[in-house]
């Protein structure tokens, strides 16, 4: 297999993924405000979105970036996707806790987009991401805005259809 290898040592990017994985504990520590299935949905959303975009724009023919030490799909890549679940859960948790409504939705999404860009920047510095073909961090802004807005819309749909089967 002809693959790109950036490095092979256990260093900052591996620690970054493992520390992020530890944050999953937060999901269990926080007082529960969602039922079990809704918690699963909000956690899974982050994993789903991260996998969708990574396995779409970071693979050939587009291949805008690589994740972790090489271009190959590794166990660490898979583990790094799980940590996105914590962020998507927290996104929804704080949204409900702070009772975000009306125009505050825009502010809330903007704050989370800035936070996401910050986490991505740290990921870039520690070697979790390796950009290619001129990819820039700010390209991700549109993705963050889209997926966070979608998550809020889905949350409202879930609330609206709570306790009833589909028509």
């Amino acid at each position, binding site marked *: 297999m002809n693959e790109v290898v950036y490095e092979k040592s256990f260093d900052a990017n591996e620690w970054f993924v493992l520390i992020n994985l530890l944050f999953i504990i937060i999901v269990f520590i926080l007082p529960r405000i969602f*039922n079990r*299935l809704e918690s699963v*949905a909000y956690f899974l959303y982050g*994993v789903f979105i991260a996998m969708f975009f990574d396995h779409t724009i970071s693979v050939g023919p587009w291949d805008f970036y690589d994740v972790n030490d090489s271009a190959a799909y590794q166990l660490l890549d898979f583990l790094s996707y799980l940590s996105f679940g914590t962020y998507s859960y927290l996104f929804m948790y704080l949204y409900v806790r702070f009772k975000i409504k009306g125009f505050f939705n825009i502010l809330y999404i903007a704050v989370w987009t800035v936070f996401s860009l910050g986490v991505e920047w740290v990921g870039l510095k520690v070697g979790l991401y390796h950009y290619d073909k001129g990819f820039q961090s700010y390209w991700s802004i549109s993705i963050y805005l889209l997926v966070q807005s979608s998550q809020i819309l889905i949350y409202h749909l879930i609330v609206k259809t709570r306790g009833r*089967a589909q028509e």
Partner: protein
Amino acid sequence: MAISISFILVWFFVSCFLLIPKTLSFLHNFILFMFTTIVSTNVMTILTMQLEFIKNTQNPFLFIVFILYRDVLIPVIVLLFVNVSLHSEKKRLFFLLALLILVLFDYFLVQFKVMEFIKWNFLFAMIVHSAYLLIGLLISKLLTAMDNRGESIK
């Protein structure tokens, strides 16, 4: 050509899913969709990048067809199958129908060179698609069981 045909087919199956009476709730369908997409994405990445059993197109435009297949068509067919067959006695018939649609789409992708089978064939494809459908059914039963525990926070 391949992009147009795949868009039409995906539109048709998504429309069918939106219009059929559903046995699962929105939340159940949403979780099942995400779960199936995660599984199919990982399977396709492992088959193409790691094992190199399948070679996906390197044409950026045709790659859209591959994404539609992996992230929309497979999960939507699983959702259709689960919602239609969950409480039906014609499970086997719906299973075979869903399997046929998925394998025909595989054939379409191979014909239009969206993917190329290297160490892969339609029998293996049928086995993997059967696994998607059965996992879908299993997950839906698990979700229903979790819901029936009657847990309520609010």
